[in-house]
């Protein structure tokens, strides 16, 4: 008998360590996480801004209808489920029951209807454009919202995240001036996993656990603190010293990444946000850039690999096509700029000769002005490399680093430039972030197509792809449009960027969404308690 007992004891003894090992993967409760942002958020209302500081703070206190998983598929958040009609003209959302606002009021479809009609459609810089396609929003019962479209708009569902379409409390915003509402700068009320704590201006913003959060057991953390650190090197130092636990890509000095990877107390993650690109736009309304051959020659003469290594510290890949390779379903593998426009200075020179732009007595063929936003990381180095690369082609470049407002004025409004460098986000779908760079734009709106390039076939294909409800149809259109753009080249994709976040090694559950603003309810700290 004793031998049996001993045996059982031994068995348990050997099993026990295995149990604790499994346990370390079970989320623990409690703890505070400090994340660094670069400045005071300009507002705490996520539905009217695309500011990274603002969203970084506000999206911990608010939710969207969905979030995007790592494959960019929408998953339930405030919307429990949804159905899309075959013609794409109707989406019905079924909302989560028992969701409460932080002040105890019940959340309902009325909040969604109000936010969509009175806030997003009027004030959100990006999503506003999506709502142009919307006919009406109905709230037939407290848990159902129906969006009816004038024309189908395929990416709509993908835009219903916190970043693009956070839901605001109707009972606090209806009848007020949405932009001037005092809740925008103090004590906002949301549905999110964390609620408002306090804001010590210039220092930090504290948010505490929402015990009434609609997902049971979540969030794991007790507190989240946004530490305002305007100095970029200081942010990295703070992370290494353990005073800050997380830095989002936007706030991270990319040249430090290599060093941070060596740090055992930190975890570095790539692809932490919807990808963006660095674009080189050619002003096709000016000679000699109106000649396709010249544009292609300049593309051939640009050492994009050097740009990737020296300007972006290897964080990304050389651009292959108008559509970011990360958007796997839409990228056309038959289009590859690294083959089509592989760096070859002699070929470029030959092409320029062919185009009729011979070198003058001093070796110069023509001059160009390169305009870019001096404050955007990576652009100054890219400009220098481009200038140097093109010198070998006999093209003299005058570099014009200007401030942001002047960029908007000169590049987009007045088109007073020959070449410009711009960072564009894809926003996760070609219809949102990429089409704008290539479709006809005559009104001088910022962050659209400043080249003057206008190809009705391209416009058509992008428009088709935006409304086709079936992904395969969209894919067909995108595949074709990429071929045309690769040939016409009004803009050259220099680099497909990847975003990189860094966090303390003691935090788990990060980066479960495609965007850095969601799912903070799932983040946990290894030093916490086993249960609430």
């Amino acid at each position: 008998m004793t031998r049996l007992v001993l045996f059982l004891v031994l068995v348990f003894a050997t099993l026990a360590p295995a149990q604790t090992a499994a346990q370390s993967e079970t989320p623990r409760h409690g703890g505070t996480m400090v994340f660094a942002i670069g400045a005071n958020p300009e507002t705490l209302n996520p539905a009217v801004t695309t500011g990274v500081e603002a969203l970084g703070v506000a999206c911990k206190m608010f939710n969207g209808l969905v979030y995007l998983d790592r494959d960019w598929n929408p998953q339930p958040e405030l919307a429990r489920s949804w159905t899309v009609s075959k013609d794409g003209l109707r989406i019905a959302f079924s909302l989560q029951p028992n969701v409460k606002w932080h002040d105890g009021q019940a959340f309902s479809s009325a909040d969604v209807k109000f936010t969509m009609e009175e806030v997003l459609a009027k004030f959100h810089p990006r999503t506003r454009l999506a709502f142009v396609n919307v006919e009406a929003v109905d709230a037939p019962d407290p848990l159902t919202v129906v969006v009816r479209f004038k024309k189908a708009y395929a990416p709509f569902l993908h835009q219903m995240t916190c970043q693009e379409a956070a839901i605001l409390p109707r009972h606090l915003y209806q009848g007020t001036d949405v932009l001037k509402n005092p809740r925008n700068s103090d004590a906002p009320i949301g549905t999110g996993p964390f609620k408002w704590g306090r804001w010590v201006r210039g220092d930090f913003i504290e948010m505490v656990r929402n015990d009434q959060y609609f997902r049971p057991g979540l969030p794991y953390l007790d507190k989240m603190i946004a530490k305002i650190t305007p100095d970029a090197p200081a942010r990295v130092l703070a992370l290494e010293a353990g005073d800050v636990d997380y830095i989002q890509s936007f706030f991270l000095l990319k040249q430090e990444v290599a060093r941070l990877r060596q740090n055992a107390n930190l975890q570095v993650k790539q692809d932490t946000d919807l990808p963006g690109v660095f674009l080189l736009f050619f002003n096709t309304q000016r000679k000699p850039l109106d000649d396709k051959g010249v544009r292609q020659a300049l593309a051939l003469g640009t050492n994009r690999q050097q740009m990737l290594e020296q300007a972006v510290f290897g964080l990304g890949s050389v651009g292959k096509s108008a559509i970011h390779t990360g958007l796997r379903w839409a990228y056309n593998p038959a289009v590859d700029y690294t083959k089509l426009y592989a760096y070859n200075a002699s070929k470029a020179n030959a092409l320029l000769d062919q185009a009729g732009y011979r070198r003058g007595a001093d070796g110069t063929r023509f001059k160009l002005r390169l305009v870019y936003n001096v404050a955007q990381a990576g652009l100054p180095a890219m400009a220098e490399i481009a200038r140097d690369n093109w010198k070998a082609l006999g093209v003299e470049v005058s570099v014009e680093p200007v401030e942001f407002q002047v960029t908007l004025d000169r590049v987009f409004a007045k088109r007073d430039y020959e070449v410009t460098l711009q960072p564009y986000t894809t926003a996760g779908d070609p219809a949102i972030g990429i089409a704008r760079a290539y479709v006809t734009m005559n009104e001088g709106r910022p962050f659209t197509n400043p080249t003057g390039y206008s190809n009705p076939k391209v416009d058509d294909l992008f428009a088709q792809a935006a409304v086709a409800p079936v992904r395969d149809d969209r894919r067909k259109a995108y595949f074709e449009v990429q071929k045309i753009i690769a040939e016409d080249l009004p803009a050259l994709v220099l680099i497909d960027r990847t975003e990189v976040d860094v966090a303390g090694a003691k935090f788990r559950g990060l980066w479960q969404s495609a965007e850095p603003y969601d799912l903070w309810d799932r983040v946990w700290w290894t030093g916490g308690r086993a249960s609430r």
Partner: protein
Amino acid sequence: MSHIWRRFWKSRPGVVGLALVLLLLSAAALAPQLASRPPLATSAAAFRPPGVGDLLGTDNLGRDVWSGLLHGARVSLLVGVLSAGFAALIGVTVGAAAGAAGGRVDAFLMRLSDLLQTIPQFFLALLIVALAGRGLWKIVAVLAILGWPLTARLVRAEFLSLREREFVEAARALGMSDLRVALMVILPNAVSPAIVAATLGVAEAILLESGLSFFGLGDPNLISWGLMLQNAQGFLRRAWWMAVFPGLAIFMAVVSFNLFGDGLSDALNPRLRQRT
């Protein structure tokens, strides 16, 4: 004149300063020949430390630091000499006008120079360049416009003191007109503090220009020492040579003009020397 030269040679700092200035000028003049590569030429060889092949190392875009120093000398000297020169010209004119004319003209000009001297030069230059845009000639113009008050005051003071001296009275007694007296008799004597001020002004202008470049307001199409230092700021840990050498160059340039100016001052104004 020769006695001035003799006095100058006696001043060791002055001679050293002159030698350095000449060295600097020749380096700048011969920059294309002495440089190993065009200064703005990027390459894949980034962050190479000083050594064989890359004399003083390369920066984050593979640009050669040594070549950058040589070509940067051109920019610094050009801006320094031209802006100090123009400032001196303006200053002498204004100072002479104020000293000679006196009365309300004098009062107005002095008020103006007061105002300009109150706002620290660096800040005002910063503001103007931030607004007017970057560019070599703009910087020269701004520094010249901000730099004249000092020279003007010196020249005016000389004018005022010389006005009452015997040789001026004598010239007037001889029947020379006021203007001729001013131009041919007083001015040559009043000019020596202006020359010293101009030389020291070159040093100051070089510091100002590199400061402006460091703040990101230099000419973006030219390589300059200040710009190199601004670039180095982000890579201090990784590439010390990006910061050490351009700064050393600025230091040498400024020191040489300061020493030279001191020597000139001793030579031209022996009574100001500190002897007990």
